């Protein structure tokens, strides 16, 4: 019998985001774990509250109100655990945290295209901002490097370099710079250090840095040989160090950790863990892609045959870093997604003003449209950044295309807070621009990272919750790649329902077509491409595939890959409005 049924534990999962704190209840219903309810409240990591506990309790109180059950003690406002015979309390707690400033990180490696590359990838797997880089190609003197580290006041140093049994002398020189920099910093400001380089030097590292670091953690080498990269063990250690940094920075993390008996993870790490797990579980031959557009960061987790690529991009978060997006993209690249006729200056001022109030939400339709446009560009940039680190097995037909995917899961405030499911779907399609045939799910309650952390408590819970339909199926997407002119017919599609009835679509290049297929239903989709178009079966290849339904049905996206938007702003805005209309506004 599964352990979950023996234990029959109710699990309270808490996610502390930069803007919103969520409390989610998972419990056993009819022998299977289910997502029961969710309560939320504004996060309180920042001033004037400066204690995440306030937001956590408020989210739990809101959850209590929905459940009609008591979770917090009426006297002390503390969590009741384990659950009581009267139905109050919970058996276990798990938590994820993405609130907090970007972790200022120094990355150290030897060769810029080997260990330093791995160190950078490792840094990108969490909420970090690289403030200084040291490598063999850095010709500064040790004391200059040391001063530079001190000036950057890092929270974290990621030390890599050397294959196991390989180079040691060059690493020792860099260890010296890092060690002296730590020595020069006040004790309470010293950074935590993760060493994931040549394992033969682990003892030297302990000796040189152990007494000077805020904390020193030694992990397996991220580059045991030139050809092999192994980020997973170091990522695990990094997740733990990041939580310790958060504990130092944010009041209330320690209490949350006590509630959760230590089961607290950075949100992105838990999201990645879940995608790796699903990729293995469903033996995905192509890829699984999960994106999360949040206030603290936009994150992208991709699983290809069990291999995880995780990219966390605070610079593309929609909160306090919002104005900083202009350091990475042109204002026109955000404007292109707008259906509103506003000036670039208006948009620029919007970005700066909004970054003053990260937790504010769009109150008007115009503001919602601007938020959606910014979210598109943030996600577009994040997916492109992550794609560079996809494994070689994730083969794209062309360098400017995404590799084929088996599934897309979208989540995060900007995606799940769209005003309609069609709006959420269009945001994902515009930004990701997937190719092939795949279902698209919406993680409306941002459950995925919570399932990732709950897996450490109960391995059956994530699968049972996902299979119970906790995510909203938006539909199955068919992306058509074609070399055609706007308006040319590129595909004939016929959807045969279970009862034998049919729906047909004559798809023109540049168009977006929807064939209705309700959630929970399956049908057979026959595709007949024209002009050697590729509708997911290969260029010019016809065929029939089984498809599952969703809130929108079967969506045929023939708008082109990469998506070409008209340069004429009036025509572009009209087209965007038309697409919005097609997906239900």
């Amino acid at each position, binding site marked *: 019998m599964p352990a979950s049924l023996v234990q029959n534990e109710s699990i309270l999962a808490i996610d502390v985001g930069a803007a919103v704190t969520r409390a989610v209840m998972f419990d056993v219903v009819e022998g299977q774990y289910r997502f029961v309810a969710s309560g939320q409240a504004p996060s309180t990591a920042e*001033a004037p509250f400066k204690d995440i506990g*306030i937001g956590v309790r408020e989210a739990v109180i809101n959850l209590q109100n929905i459940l009609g059950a008591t979770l917090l003690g009426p006297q002390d406002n503390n969590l009741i655990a384990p659950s009581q015979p009267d139905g109050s309390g919970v058996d276990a707690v798990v938590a994820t945290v993405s609130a907090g400033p970007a972790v200022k990180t120094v990355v150290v490696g030897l060769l810029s295209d080997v260990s330093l590359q791995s160190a950078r990838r490792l840094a990108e797997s969490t909420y970090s901002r690289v403030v200084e880089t040291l490598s063999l190609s850095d010709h500064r003197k040790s004391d200059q490097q040391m001063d530079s580290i001190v000036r950057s006041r890092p929270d974290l140093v990621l030390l890599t370099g050397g294959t196991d049994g390989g180079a040691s002398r060059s690493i020792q020189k860099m260890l010296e710079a890092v060690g002296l920099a730590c020595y020069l910093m006040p004790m309470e400001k010293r950074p935590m250090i993760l060493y994931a380089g040549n394992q033969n030097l682990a003892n030297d590292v302990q000796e040189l840095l152990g007494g000077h670091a805020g904390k020193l953690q030694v992990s397996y080498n991220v580059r045991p040989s030139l050809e092999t990269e192994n980020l997973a063990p170091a990522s695990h250690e990094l997740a733990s160090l990041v939580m310790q940094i958060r504990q130092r920075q944010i009041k209330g993390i320690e209490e949350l950790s006590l509630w959760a008996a230590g089961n607290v993870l950075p949100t992105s790490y838990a999201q990645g863990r879940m995608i790796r797990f699903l990729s293995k579980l469903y033996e995905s031959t192509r890829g699984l892609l999960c994106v999360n557009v949040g206030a603290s960061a936009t994150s992208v987790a991709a699983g290809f045959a069990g291999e995880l690529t995780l990219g966390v991009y605070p610079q593309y978060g929609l909160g306090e870093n919002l*104005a900083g997006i202009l350091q990475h993209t042109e204002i026109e690249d955000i404007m292109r997604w707008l259906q509103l006729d506003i000036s670039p200056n208006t948009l620029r001022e919007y970005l700066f*003003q909004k970054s003053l109030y990260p937790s504010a939400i769009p109150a008007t*339709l115009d503001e919602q449209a601007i938020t959606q446009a910014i979210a598109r560009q943030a996600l577009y940039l994040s997916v492109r950044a992550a794609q560079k680190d996809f494994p070689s097995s994730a083969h794209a037909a062309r360098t400017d295309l995404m590799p084929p995917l088996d599934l897309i899961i979208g989540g995060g405030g900007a995606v799940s807070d769209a005003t309609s499911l069609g709006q959420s779907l269009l945001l994902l399609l515009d930004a990701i621009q997937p190719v092939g045939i795949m279902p698209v799910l919406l993680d409306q309650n941002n459950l995925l990272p919570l399932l990732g952390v709950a897996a450490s408590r109960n391995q059956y819970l994530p699968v049972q919750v996902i299979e119970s339909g906790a995510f909203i199926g938006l539909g199955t997407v068919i992306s058509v790649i074609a070399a055609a002119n706007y308006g040319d017919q590129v595909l004939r599609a016929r959807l045969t329902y279970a009862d034998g009835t049919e729906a047909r679509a004559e798809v023109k290049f540049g168009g977006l077509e929807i064939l209705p297929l309700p959630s929970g239903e399956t049908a057979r989709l026959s595709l007949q491409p024209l002009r050697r178009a590729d509708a997911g079966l290969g260029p010019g290849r016809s065929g029939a595939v089984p498809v599952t339904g969703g809130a929108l049905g079967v969506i045929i996206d023939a708008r082109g890959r990469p998506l070409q938007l008209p340069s004429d702003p009036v025509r572009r805005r009209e087209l965007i409005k038309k697409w919005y209309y097609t997906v239900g506004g």
Partner: protein
Amino acid sequence: MLAPMLHVLPLTTIVRERTLPVAGKVNARVDQKVSPTDVVAEASFAREHVLLDVARAFGVSALAADKMIRVNTGDRLAEGALVAEKSGIFARSIKAPRAGRVMVAGSGQVLMEVGDARIELRAGLPGIVTQVIPERGVVIRTAGALVQGVWGNGRIDNGLMISLIEKQDDVLTADQLDVSLRGSVILGGHVRDADTLRVAAELPVRGLIISSLLSPLIAPAYQMRYPILALDGFGAMPMNSAAFKLLTTNNKREATVNAEHPDRYSGHKPEVIIPLPVSSEPDEPNDYETWRLGATVRMRRPPNAGMIGAITNLRAGLSALPSGLRARAADVKLENGETVIVPLVNMEVVG
């Protein structure tokens, strides 16, 4: 649900911590009366460090090198002073490349700090020192008017505040700034050109308190050596009526402009302090309170960003907004008489 606050207070007790970024010496004592320009603490720190690798330079072991090092931790060295020497037929020496202090000597190396820089921490506001933070700074207590803003260029100064604003949506232009304003803190409206900032620097002024500025002026504003404080933000935002009324009625009073950069985590906000004489000390303001009927609130986001109103109804549950989203919200009667629905996360309590 708790409500964040924006302080716009005609009379309150203000307690501010003023600290050095590095350890130093505190000059003030508890109960000392200080003026804004008084230096309450000072520190000197090394801008750079020099690492002299004696063992490597002499090609000997660290242990052997230690015997050749002629300086001790804490020694102050002049440029060219002897640091280490190797005797014998091939005698060699290492000299201090720059004047500085030996931070640590051992393991075959000498680490020096060089390029001393001095920081003077001024009180920034007039008041009484209520606490000395050893090696770091002081806590100062004063009474007066307090107006918080949303953005600052990181500088602090004080002077006589002169108002050049007549309406909340006025624009402050360079041609309004003449020599009679030299040494003053200027209260102006929206700034939309770098010329205004430059002319203010040339006078020079002791500070600019403005309603808003265009975002391309952020970089030039950081270059200015006087404090620039935006009360309402970026773009062409008018000054919120609460700050406008309070500041214009305090025209020609001494004001401290602490245009520190807002820090979301520490809660530090740029602020204007106008010290006022009091017979009895008023209460200190709260950092947050709960949403309540009648509370004066400022709209943080469109469509009424910057406007002041009063809560007339706290809605139960979630309310549908014109954007299509649903959120906890309140009915707010704005100063123009219009009543609007505003999500709680888009407001702050003024007080």
